[in-house]
């Protein structure tokens, strides 16, 4: 069964293609539309995109795999992006990534077994004065301490640790 856009999404697509003199230029926004409609971009989504744009699925595959910010079928429901570029690294993003992975029980770039959470490193999010920074779906988490990291994980359904701070010893001191 081939996929279709919902009527509203189809309307949005019809508008999109009017914004460009060449249909193929609507590729990136169309992929966003498909990502939103179906939760991710999987091979079926790529086929749909190819149909809409009027190009080969191979072309779409080539485009999708060039970019890192589309949600793919291999990603969990929520992707936690941890910025790892220098300004964040200077304020402890490596340690933050370790902490998050440790709490969730997966490695960097991995997804939990229940497919709820993926943790990925991301390059500079242009929020360097708020370092260290994470992005979870459409929410930017700024100045992420371990406490804030716990809060972020709680918003993803991972309960806070009862003895946060005590276990790791003294890190809550940095104010």
């Amino acid at each position, binding site marked *: 069964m081939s996929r279709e856009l919902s009527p509203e999404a189809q309307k949005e697509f019809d508008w999109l293609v009017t*914004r460009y003199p060449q249909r193929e230029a609507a*590729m990136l926004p169309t992929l966003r539309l498909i990502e939103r409609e179906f939760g991710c971009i999987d091979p079926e989504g790529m086929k749909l995109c190819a149909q809409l744009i009027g190009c080969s699925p191979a072309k779409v595959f080539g485009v999708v795999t060039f970019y890192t910010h589309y949600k793919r079928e291999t990603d969990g429901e929520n992707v936690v992006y941890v910025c790892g570029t*220098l300004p964040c*690294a200077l304020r402890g993003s490596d340690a933050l990534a370790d902490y998050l992975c440790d709490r969730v029980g997966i490695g960097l770039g991995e997804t939990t077994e229940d497919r709820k959470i993926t943790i990925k490193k991301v390059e500079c999010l242009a929020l*360097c004065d708020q370092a260290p920074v994470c992005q979870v779906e459409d929410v930017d988490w700024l100045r*992420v301490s371990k406490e804030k990291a716990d809060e972020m994980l709680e918003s993803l359904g991972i309960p806070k640790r009862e003895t946060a701070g005590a276990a790791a010893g003294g890190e809550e001191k*940095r104010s």
Partner: protein
Amino acid sequence: MSAISKPSDTLAFEPVLTRYIGKKDSHTLDFYLSHGGYDAAKRVVRDYKPDEVIDAVKKSGLRGRGGAGFPCGLKWSFVPKKTDKPKYLVCNADESEPGTFKDRVINEEDPHQLLEGILITCWAVGIETAYIYIRGEMWRGAQRLKAAIDEAYAKGYLGKKIFGKKFNLDVTVHRGAGAYICGEETGMLSSLEGGRGYPKLKPPFPAVEGLFRCPTVVNNVETLANLPHIFNRGIEWYRSIGTEESPGPKLFCVSGHVNKPGVYERPLGIPLRELIYDVCGGIPGDRGIRAVIPGGSSAPFLGPDELDTPMSYEGLKDAGSMLGSAGVIVLDDTTDLLSALLNVGKFYHHESCGQCTPCREGCGWVEKILQRMHDGRGRSEDIDLVDEICNQMVGKTICVLSDALAMPAQSVLKKFRPELEKLIAQGRPDVLCELAREPSPAL
């Protein structure tokens, strides 16, 4: 190089681009109009011939704020006047250079300032279609820009017969999807055309053959945001800010080891020391400075003896670095430079688009060798080896991403060689190799 002229008084300076940032509803059309918004665009479209606009921008001395500092008016003048093809403006809002976070402020808090700059540009160059290419991660910026565009259409500031003249303009926000190379102007055009973000060989330059193989102006967000002010307050006023070769106000993004990181608007030419100590409150714990990256991670590092460098295009060039995107990353004297450089190396290796061998392989080799030095497996010849690889990476590729790793890497090898030699000899048994052991929003 010419002597460096003195910057205008940095203390008496009043913000221009960020004047209304932080005020309630600064992103709305009503707010913008209540502070003289779109007056400049109206006047320009009604009273200026396109050539007169280009001329005025040339005279203002405005230089591109995206990285290369190319004179804005001059770039516009390269677009052919007589052509059957449509012309395009692509506003570069990709802002991915590590340590850069200034365009975000305009997109999110004062998007009409950018739209007004776009109107002026399109009138000057004869453009009817503009795109704002914003990086995919900046969802709020994209929302705010879209809302501002809707408001402008509703008011008749975009669309057909703008300001009652024979002037039509459509503006569309185009979201990227996570690729640093799409900030490079030709990579951006490839991406906008619906493909992988592969840069293209220049020439032809975009001004002659760009988007859809038509003449295209590419300008950074901050560059465009300067335009309304130039026409509101005049060329003389504009040139009274900054230096002779770098006129105007500039958004400096300061991050890393400073007490008050943030975006600060100051005249071009402000000494780096003043920016770090007076504006950003100095270094946490009153520690010393090991190095400063003055213009985003593509810029060669400066040492602690170079803090008097003026933050202007010419001042940083004379110091062997560059103003770039004015992303200032401060590293205090506890920072392990090898870790810092390795982080930079990883970034460029990850972001190389892979078209050119010197870049694709070179970035990878540099990262690999830095990694082994970092892990205590460095060899005495490694410093020269990295240097030699970097020599092969400069000036040999389609775009300058390759140079953007080679140049900062070579600056570190040159300026901090004894330190690196010591680390290699020690085999790094120390634990200094991490940049920070805790997530540390406050230092």
